[in-house]
């Protein structure tokens, strides 16, 4: 039971007091959040950059480039008004590899694949960086859970063709998972579309910038 030292003062019963109180706490919370934001925003931005560097280094080997992959991404203009961000790895001024994200439709929604290709359109590496697939079944597309996605490395569109770049169930070359076909199919489709994209825009992607 609440213990009242003295009867509640009149002013506290007024609506204005409660409203002002709520407003006061809102300002206090706002100030605390602003302070927190200012103190952490640089560190958060640094973490984000580190994450992207880590992702990119998984799909483009360090030996292939001497530039900072995040430095000057290319905004590739696609048909219509869309554009795609492409990271380019250069060595001695020549483009040695490119990396970009492709999206496939998985069982639980979009599967985002980061794809790294060399000059000849060969897959250097692919990593699933976001997905909503079933744990224990579809999440084997994550490299931490299973080495499946590394089986894509070294292959290209020239080598396998569109027919080869499918899951085995669809007549292609890549394993699917027991009990989960849609998920690996989404990843293979995303990578295949990425290979097509590379072929379609090859000249622009590999053009060396003169800085």
């Amino acid at each position: 039971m609440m213990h009242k030292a003295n009867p509640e003062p009149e002013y506290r019963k007024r609506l204005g007091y409660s409203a002002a109180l709520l407003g006061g706490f809102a300002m206090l919370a706002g100030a605390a959040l602003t302070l927190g934001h200012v103190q952490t925003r640089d560190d958060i931005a640094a973490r984000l950059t580190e994450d992207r560097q880590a992702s990119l280094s998984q799909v483009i080997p360090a030996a292939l480039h001497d530039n900072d992959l995040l430095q000057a991404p290319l905004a590739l203009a696609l048909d219509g008004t869309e554009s795609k961000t492409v990271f380019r790895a250069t060595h001695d001024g020549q483009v040695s590899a490119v990396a970009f994200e492709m999206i496939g439709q998985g069982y639980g929604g979009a599967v985002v694949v980061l794809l790294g290709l060399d000059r000849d359109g060969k897959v250097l590496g692919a990593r699933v960086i976001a997905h909503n697939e079933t744990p224990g079944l579809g999440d084997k597309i994550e490299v931490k859970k299973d080495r499946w996605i590394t089986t894509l490395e070294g292959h290209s569109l020239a080598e396998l063709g569109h027919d080869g770049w499918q899951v085995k169930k669809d007549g292609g070359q890549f394993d699917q998972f027991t009990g989960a076909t849609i998920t690996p199919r989404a990843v293979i489709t995303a990578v295949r579309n990425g290979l097509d994209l590379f072929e379609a825009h090859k000249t622009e992607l590999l053009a060396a910038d003169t800085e």
Partner: protein
Amino acid sequence: MSTDYKRIVRDGLWDNNVVFAQMLALCPLLAVTGTATNGLGMGLATTAVMVVSGMVIALFRSMVTPEVRIPVFVLLIAAIVTLVDMMMNAWLHELYKVLGLFIPLIVTNCAILGRAESFASKNPVMASAADGLFMGLGFTLGLVVLGAVREVIGSGTLFANAALLLGEPFHFMELTLLPGYDGFLLMILPPGGFLVLGFLLAGKRLLDARRSRIVAQPEPSPEAAAAAAAG
């Protein structure tokens, strides 16, 4: 009104445990306890929020009118969780990525609002801090036990990725208890969590019933004890 700290500790950890007695916060509980480490991480973040929110609300308790107390509590708790979220993103980034969406969801954890309303708004700052701490630890206990059971039966490991949460020296905690185990998918999904929680709740009831039976057993009177000893 002096604070009964022993009561606070016992209530928080067992008698009024957030998960096993009050049965609050079941949604984040079931979603996060696929592994023991995730449960531990979530529990520690929630404990931090409960301590800070308990103290802040206790600090302002005499100012807040009954009419606006709920909006004020929610506002303060949401601000604290947002600050914890920003700080984890900046300084505990790996754990932040593991816990992901569940850090902002701490705001919806009804246990925090529940303790604010039933304890922190009526008790001094230090007592509220203690209550927040032990309620949070009790919640963490529930999370870790549930996570451990689900992880062992579901994946055969225990405390996988402990090094991500606690740092490199804790690598030794990561155990693979059943090597080559294919896993029991049901345990990793929420229905399995419900089932395990049910068994744990039953287990706690059994333990409590046994304890109260032992306590209720009448003590033999001194004459009877002397007669038994002599005869």
